[in-house]
């Protein structure tokens, strides 16, 4: 009985940004990193029927019409490494400054719509299973843009204590077969939670040994990109632009409660300040995320296996000079989002 194991799935995606939304990356622009995501990025073609049309004498479909390609969102999930962190914050926020000659430093910031526009850089996403004569899957999703992402740091041992997840929007354009020669897997430098340095509103949680978990991220809330003239592939409409909506940063964490815990007082006093989260493997591999004016929406006391904790939902505010967030990632890999 024929079968294809999911473990055969090869996923590569654009290390380099596409020149525009409709021009896919070549093999040279694709890289392959360790993959723990079990979901396919299915470019779903949608048909419409005439079921609701009048005059047929019944409510059932007799005819189908090609409509559009759903833009996802599709997902990716990875253990957080310096290589992927540089990619994630660059493509996720939209603006990056690359410096250095190896290791490379990527300083990432959100787009400023008035000057940068409202379109993030796009990338290609390739899935392959037995490409070639015995192909099962071989497709390149052209025009993908990071819709939302989060970085999760959690208590516990193992790689799973530092995970990054993202969702991306796809224009709908697909090249099949992909034409991509999948590269060897890039060796990654994982940023495990053991290295975390976390200071929020002046509280150094790592020194206090009180930190439990944290989730931080960003939602670009893309606008629908189907418009008159947006284009088609095989008579299915595709999106001709993928633009920012009303962006939403997110930041929440859980820490142990103690007599001097400042979180609830900060909620009541509307206190705000800098929050810095860093993961470091070594001098060549690190991620430092600075939220320039963090305030707390709520602080709830909870139980964590018998230990009392405080769960905080943050509201990253806009700092008049520095904006909302800056992520600085150091990694040995050149050319990310370039």
């Amino acid at each position, binding site marked *: 009985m024929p079968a294809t194991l999911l473990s055969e799935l090869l996923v590569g995606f654009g290390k380099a940004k596409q020149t525009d939304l409709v021009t896919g990356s070549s093999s040279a622009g694709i890289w392959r990193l360790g993959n723990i995501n079990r979901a396919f990025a299915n470019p779903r073609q949608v048909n419409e029927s005439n079921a609701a049309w009048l005059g047929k004498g019944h409510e059932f479909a007799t005819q189908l019409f090609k409509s559009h390609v759903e833009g996802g969102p599709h997902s990716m999930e990875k253990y957080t490494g310096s290589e992927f962190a540089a990619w994630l914050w660059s493509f996720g926020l939209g603006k990056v*400054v690359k*410096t250095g000659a190896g290791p490379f*430093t990527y*300083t990432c910031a959100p787009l400023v719509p008035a000057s940068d526009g409202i379109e993030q850089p796009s990338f290609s996403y390739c899935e392959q299973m037995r490409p070639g004569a015995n192909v099962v899957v071989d497709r390149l999703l052209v025009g993908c843009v990071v819709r939302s992402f989060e970085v999760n740091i959690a208590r516990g041992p193992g790689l799973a204590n530092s995970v990054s997840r993202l969702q991306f929007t796809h224009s709908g354009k697909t090249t099949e077969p992909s034409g991509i020669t999948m590269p060897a897997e890039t060796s990654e430098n994982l940023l495990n939670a053991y290295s975390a340095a976390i200071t929020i509103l002046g509280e150094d949680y790592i020194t206090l040994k009180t930190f439990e978990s944290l989730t931080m991220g960003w939602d670009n809330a893309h606008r629908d990109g189907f418009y008159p003239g947006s284009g088609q592939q095989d008579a299915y409409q595709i999106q001709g632009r993928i633009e920012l909506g009303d962006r939403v940063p997110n930041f929440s964490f859980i820490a142990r409660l103690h007599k001097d815990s400042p979180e609830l007082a900060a909620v009541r006093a509307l206190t705000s300040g800098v929050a810095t989260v860093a993961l470091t493997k070594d001098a060549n591999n690190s991620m*430092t995320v*600075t939220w320039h004016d963090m305030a707390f929406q709520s602080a709830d006391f909870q139980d964590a296996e018998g230990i009392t904790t405080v769960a905080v939902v943050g509201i990253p505010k806009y700092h008049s*000079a520095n*904006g909302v967030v800056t992520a600085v990632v150091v990694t040995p890999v050149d050319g990310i989002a370039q």
Partner: protein
Amino acid sequence: MDKATLISPDGEIRDVAATMEELTPLLAAGWRQHLPPEGGVETEAGETLDPEEDVTDASDTAI
């Protein structure tokens, strides 16, 4: 100290230290990294000229 070349929304070009403290307010103000195309020539005014392009000013050769 690494340097980064940034360009403002108005076209001003500036070399700054590649530190978060230096870059952050500029990025938040709409500046972005300025990367001349490979092989291109950047003028003092910050314009990038194609190396294949004839850049001779017509006024220089006018009789």
